[in-house]
């Protein structure tokens, strides 16, 4: 692994703004992006990702790579939380294990778009339908997490917390960020198929503005991540190790799946990044509602304080070199 791609990744504006945010906390600057401004950017990014993804999917149509890739994506988001759960159970109770595992099975949209920016920077092609994988990988991990709680939780859980399947589906599919991403994807698809002039009119908002808005949001993510990081200390070294090891492990599985799917290097990187990233939006919101026994500081500090920065700064170039090493290997 050369140092060059890492440095090049770090020198891209979004990553630099992320670092600026993190450093401001380190140096105790009073730089602050007050609530609810970050929410504006997170809503915007979800809307724009979905909308552009929907257009791309409509344009590219369902080629014969699409269906296997999307199925594999869903499969990964079902399997990863199970593996994570087994690992976490060594140290944590059912509730915390399920909640953290679900977060790692699900995805981080901002990590995904950072990987897209990285690919554009490196001039490596990728396909629009990968946004479909992004959208489809958010919910299954939540379902797995909640099912784990439902079946593995101590029998004396109070009645009010017994979860019905309908509640589980509701939390996983109608969660605000899942819903906005999915429905924007549908809007993009419908616009591209029935009203193509609408695409051009949306482009300045969802397209041109995107990179800058990403930078601004990452500035805030840097602040938030650096604020969360110290709380990991209380969580202990097991969880700290987990938040670096788990993405690497997931990336490793992911790259072999990508190879099995014969994905090109661009799509492969995005697939790997989806596997390696962890959710700090949809999953925490759902877990907070349904599994209050789990400590939110655990699943937030790990995903936001360590895994997210790791992926953004070091992970993506590492996964790229992983992809470049494994994908071209001769067939087994």
């Amino acid at each position, binding site marked *: 692994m050369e140092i060059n791609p890492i440095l090049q990744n770090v020198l891209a504006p979004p990553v630099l703004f992320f670092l600026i945010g993190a450093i401001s906390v380190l140096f105790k600057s009073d730089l602050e992006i007050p*609530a*609810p401004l*970050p*929410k504006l*950017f*997170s809503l915007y990014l979800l809307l724009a990702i979905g909308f552009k993804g929907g257009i791309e999917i409509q344009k590219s149509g369902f080629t014969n790579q699409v269906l296997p890739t999307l199925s594999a994506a869903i499969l990964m988001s079902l399997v990863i939380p199970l593996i994570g759960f087994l690992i976490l159970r060594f140290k944590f109770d059912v509730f915390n294990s399920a909640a953290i595992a679900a977060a790692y099975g699900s995805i981080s949209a901002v990590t995904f778009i950072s990987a897209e920016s990285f690919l554009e920077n490196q001039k490596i092609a990728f396909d629009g339908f990968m946004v479909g994988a992004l959208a489809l990988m958010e919910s299954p991990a939540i379902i797995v997490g909640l099912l784990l709680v439902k079946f593995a939780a101590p029998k004396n859980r109070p009645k*009010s*917390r017994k979860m019905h399947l309908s509640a589980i589906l509701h939390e996983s599919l109608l*969660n*605000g*960020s899942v819903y906005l991403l999915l429905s924007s994807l549908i809007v993009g698809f419908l616009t591209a198929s029935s009203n193509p002039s609408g695409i051009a009119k949306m482009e300045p908002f969802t397209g041109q503005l995107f990179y800058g808005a990403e930078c601004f949001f990452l500035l*805030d993510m840097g602040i*938030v991540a650096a604020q969360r990081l110290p709380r990991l200390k209380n969580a202990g070294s097991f969880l700290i190790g987990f938040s670096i090891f788990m993405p690497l492990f997931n990336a490793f599985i992911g790259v072999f799946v990508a190879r099995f799917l014969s994905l090109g290097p661009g799509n492969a990187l995005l697939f790997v990044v989806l596997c390696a990233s962890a959710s*700090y*939006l*949809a999953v*925490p*919101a759902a877990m*907070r*509602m349904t599994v*209050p026994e789990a*400590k*939110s*500081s655990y699943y*937030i500090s790990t995903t*936001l304080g360590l895994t997210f920065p790791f992926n953004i700064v070091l992970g993506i170039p590492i996964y790229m070199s992983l992809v470049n090493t494994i994908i071209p290997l001769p067939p087994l």
Partner: protein
Amino acid sequence: MKRLDLIFSERELDAIIKTLEKANVPGYTVMKHATGRGPERVVTEDMEFTGLGANAHVIVFCEQELIDKMRDNIRDDLSYYGGVAYISEATPL
């Protein structure tokens, strides 16, 4: 008259309001975006963008009997996600 102060996670707000409405309180006031720390030493912050939200602070001015009526339900609600409830004296102006 009494004043009831409830502080709990915003995510619990709908449940608490349902409890208040069922007891037929004369009114209530909600302030969102409160942050804080509870006995479990977990600091609640206003991370609205993550969907976690912050705390809500609900004030109810009502008679003691109403509070007695709601006590069990509110305690149930609060025992779910955590939160505190305190009563004090209040006189209408």
